[in-house]
């Protein structure tokens, strides 16, 4: 995608990652507000990361590793992956 001159909004920080996970249905919508993100338990964040990794076919580590952050930076559809 970089070949296509993409200036993708890279996801590089924990907060950005949690907003991403919230935006696409892996964490509760309240996390879209960065000020709320500290309220999430470590366990629920790790579970959300694992669900995202499973959905996109990455190694399921529950951590925000490089692969996962890179996947979160790829341009995509705005519809949630997990629809209630």
């Amino acid at each position, binding site marked *: 995608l970089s070949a*296509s001159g993409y200036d*993708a909004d890279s996801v590089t920080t924990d907060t950005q990652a949690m907003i991403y996970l919230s935006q696409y249905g892996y964490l509760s919508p309240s996390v879209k507000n960065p000020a709320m993100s500290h309220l999430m338990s470590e366990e629920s964040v790790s579970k959300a990361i694992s669900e995202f990794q499973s959905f996109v076919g990455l*190694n399921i580590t529950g951590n925000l590793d490089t692969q996962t952050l890179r996947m979160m930076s*790829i*341009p995509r*559809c*705005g*519809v949630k992956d997990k629809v209630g």
Partner: protein
Amino acid sequence: VASDHRSKRYALQGSRWRVKNLTYKISKYPSRLRKRDVDEEIKQAFSLWSEYTDLTFTPKSSGSVHIEIRFERGEHGDGDPFDGPGGTLAHAYFPVYGGDAHFDDSERWTINSFTGTNLKQVAAHEFGHSLGLSHSDVRDALMAPFYRGYEPSLSLDSDDIEGIQALYGRKSRNTDRDSDSAGTSNRHTTEPPSEEDAELCTSASVDTMFNSADGSTFAFKGQHYWKLTEESIAPGYPQRISKSWPGLPGDIDAAFTYVKNGKTYFFKGSQYWRYTGKKMDPNYPKPISEGFTGIPDNLDAAFVWSGNGKIYFFKRDKFWRFDPAQRPPVKNTYPKPIANWEGLPNDLDAALQYTNGFTYFFKGGQYYRFNDRAFAVDVANPPFPRPAGYWWFGC
């Protein structure tokens, strides 16, 4: 990659259009492409879905339509603002929410180019949502959430095709030409006439329902059977029982699959048949009295209860519990009254342990969901019994 147990595949959001001839209009065009090029690109994006279904998409320039298409920037009135170049490219609404599709006009939309963002690919994906598909976790599926870069010959993955046909059925053959779009002749189509599909919607009563060892759910009625999807009846059904289960008669009384040995048992009159998949095991049928001592002939229904893994048989106002690990397999305290299963009627048609873990009972075109913990028919809104045609067979 640690594989999770669930096989990867399409996902249905839960709503679909009740009609197949849909209309659309482009209310707001992208700022950097010619209108007629966008019209052609959008038309081709829709055609990916109509190629495999009977869906049709008609463009309109004004008035109300099913799917409205807009190219917008930032906040655009739906509470889901776009984020500039990259990140979110577009989003769409499922049928129950209106079906519209919005595209981020700050993206560099391109046509037939390896640079920028290919409009046809993203549009075809968003229209999948407009038709009722969620994201697929199959990486190569068009309905996977990520943009894949320009593909000169864009096409649906088999996963996408299965998903859209689970919602809208397969493309019916063009019988007056007796050939499909490829021009190959289909003189002996295996698809039964569509009026038989109305069989379950005219009268939703069934002879029996069961799960096969691979987790598929089937409904039997007379000489025919239907495979069920999460939503409805799978495309291409009904088919003849004898065609798929060679040696098995129609008008079956009861059926279940015993997960411990993966075998499926069918009961009719005083006999029973045992199958491995769809192949009859040797030396069948046998008398019920021989293989299921203590169980009567001419049963109404049978299933394996999730509560204890035992096999339950129902006939008129009584039920029996059969435990293959016990001697005798049926205690002398049986039969017992079906009234013990609070809320269930006598003279059942079928009983099913569905893949969602619930137990369902069917009678006369209606069904009951059983609450295993309360040991009673579930209390829900709408209440049980519910019409099986609407909730199970997509009527």
